[in-house]
């Protein structure tokens, strides 16, 4: 049946269903148990599934990911929660040198079906280290898969698909959208859900292609709505999968529109926009009316909360870039 859910609640229900469907699924992290996580994404799960499956861990991210690897080798499917984006770095070595390489190292004899959930991005007025966008660090790492949901419906299905995947998945959650509501049909089977590693046209359009993922999809859609009033038709594509990228629909779109703008919160320099710009230019060289433009966080550390509105891409900056693709 279909219900109206916040993105956070959809994740919670998705995790619950994964715990129900497979006894090997574990949830582990800081404060995920009794507290239900600082964002309450695991709310009620320890109460219902017990401390053996929903585990409050010691305070050390390398330990969380490192022991999850061992549990995965033993046959479990751990879902690790990193409390905030800025605290994933102590686990970086285990993620880059172990999680990403184990399958390759073993010639496929060791699978690490683990998920690392990371609430990411800014816009919640937090202090330092609580608003980072580290996705490029993971997308650049061969052996990892990286996805990001932008709405409650995707949140519900994508978290289950990530857990079902035999590859390790970095699951980027748009924390500032946790409270946004959408209709979610919780019936149906995983297999019939929209594919995990496929991008999706979130709003069809004809004049320019705007790409976004996670928290910026809403921003892009708002920009499209605003642009419509000015009689400009923006096609918004939700990338969803950040590694591997699914750019087929993007190429198709750009060949039609001839214009492309990529939006993300992460700094522009070596952010996903750079890879997408490079590939789109290679694939659509003769269709482009203007270079692929990027609307991104500035190349500074994430600033203090009272500056984040200026730092973060917003509707106006997206429209400004769209305009520039026409003025080129």
């Amino acid at each position, binding site marked *: 049946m279909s219900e109206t859910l916040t993105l956070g609640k959809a994740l919670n229900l998705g995790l619950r269903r994964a715990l129900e469907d497979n006894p090997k699924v574990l949830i582990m992290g800081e404060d995920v148990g009794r507290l239900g996580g600082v964002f309450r994404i695991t709310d009620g799960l320890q109460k219902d599934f017990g401390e053996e499956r929903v585990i409050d861990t010691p305070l050390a991210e390398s330990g969380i990911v490192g022991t999850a690897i061992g549990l995965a080798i033993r046959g479990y499917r751990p879902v690790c929660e990193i409390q905030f984006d800025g605290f994933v770095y102590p686990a970086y070595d285990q993620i880059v040198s172990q999680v990403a390489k184990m399958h390759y190292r073993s010639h496929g004899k060791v699978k690490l079906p683990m998920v690392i959930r990371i609430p990411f991005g800014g816009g919640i*007025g937090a202090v330092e280290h609580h608003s980072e966008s580290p996705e490029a660090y993971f997308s650049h790492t061969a052996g990892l898969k990286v996805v990001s949901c932008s709405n409650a419906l995707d949140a519900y299905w994508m978290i289950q698909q990530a857990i079902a995947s035999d590859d390790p998945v970095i699951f980027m959650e748009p924390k500032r959208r946790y409270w946004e509501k959408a209709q979610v049909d919780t019936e149906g089977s995983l297999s019939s859900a929209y594919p995990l590693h496929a991008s999706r046209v979130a709003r069809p359009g004809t004049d320019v292609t705007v790409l976004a993922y996670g928290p910026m999809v809403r921003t892009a859609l708002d920009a499209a709505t605003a642009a419509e009033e000015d009689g400009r038709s923006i096609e918004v594509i939700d990338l969803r999968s950040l590694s591997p990228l699914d750019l087929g629909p993007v190429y198709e779109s750009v060949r039609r529109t001839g214009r492309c703008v990529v939006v993300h919160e992460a700094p522009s320099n070596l952010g996903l926009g750079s890879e997408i710009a490079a590939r789109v230019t290679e694939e659509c060289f003769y269709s482009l009316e203007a270079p692929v433009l990027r609307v991104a966080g500035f190349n500074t550390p994430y600033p203090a909360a009272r*500056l984040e509105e200026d730092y973060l891409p917003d509707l106006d900056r997206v429209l400004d870039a769209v305009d520039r693709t026409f003025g080129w």
Partner: protein
Amino acid sequence: MAKGDVARTRGRRAQPTSAEPEFVQLLTPEGERVDHPEYSVDLSDEEYRGLYRDLVIVRKLDTEATALQRQGELGIWASLLGQEAAQVGSGRALRPQDMAFPTYREHGVLYCRGIDPIMPLSLFRGVDHGAWDPNEVKFNMYTIVIGAQTLHATGYAMGVAKDGKVGDDDDQSEAVIAYFGDGASSQGDVNESFVWASVFHAPIVFFCQNNQYAISEPIERQTRVPLYRRAAGFGFPGIRVDGNDVLACYAVTRSALDHARHGQGPMLIEAYTYRMGAHTTSDDPTRYRIASEVEAWQAKDPIKRVRTFLSKQKIADDDFFAEVDDQAQREATHLRERVLSMPNPEPLTLFDHVYADGSPLIDTEREQFARYLASFEGSAH
């Protein structure tokens, strides 16, 4: 079965909290002065009153900050409520030349260093990330990444030794104190800092405020044995002190700092205390701990015992207590006024100080963004 064990460990408190903890105490919760074979303090009445004044003021300022957050004037606040004795005792034990590396909760230590309590509030208001000069105030910026500062403190202490600033002269030689929490004790960085401090014989005191919780996680999620015992395995002494006893915290920290400054190497102090409030203003402790536990600790309040002691010993009278309350109120009001009048940062300042020597990329972005902002001038935006 281990399976059962794992479950059980969750329900049961680790030894230290179940049994009466073995720790250094000089002032009981009832306000009785007790002796300890190794540690003692011999303070003047003025000094006793000074400690009381500090305790009351740092609590008052903390309460004010919590109120400011509730009223939307701060983005978040990490309250020290219940940890005043640990912070005032250790803070007052520092000599002027000593360097402190705090977490994000050491407002009391900061105050005892003689630093204006307004200094960290711009961080909690969201105006900046700290923006003070650690060397100028001998107090590092708050560090939010758990445990990271313990390595910085250890490296700094190695530098103190390299500078030849370790020795017998208490007014010249320097020591370093690194603050961290019970949860932080699980981080690799904290344990690596123990390795470095020991191997390089650094003049550093590790001061762990075991306030029983890491957000929602009780101490037994981090250890099965008292934290102070961690030190011995790294080759330096560890000791537990009653973290709600300002005299014990002062005495033990003072001696550990001098031990370090004299070239006798690092020490670990576990201040056994309790976080009376929420982890931060974003936290809801009722989800993970019961009222009776909090009440039990109320009886061990760090301020009440000092007041009782001062009265009993006739070191202070009601006029004094009233005068301290007035001063606390004045400082709180003054703090509030200055928080309210804090200006918001100018948009373009977000491009400042990314690099010491600058970067053409940042310069271009600043310039483009300035032009972009200008393009809205006059418009509705």
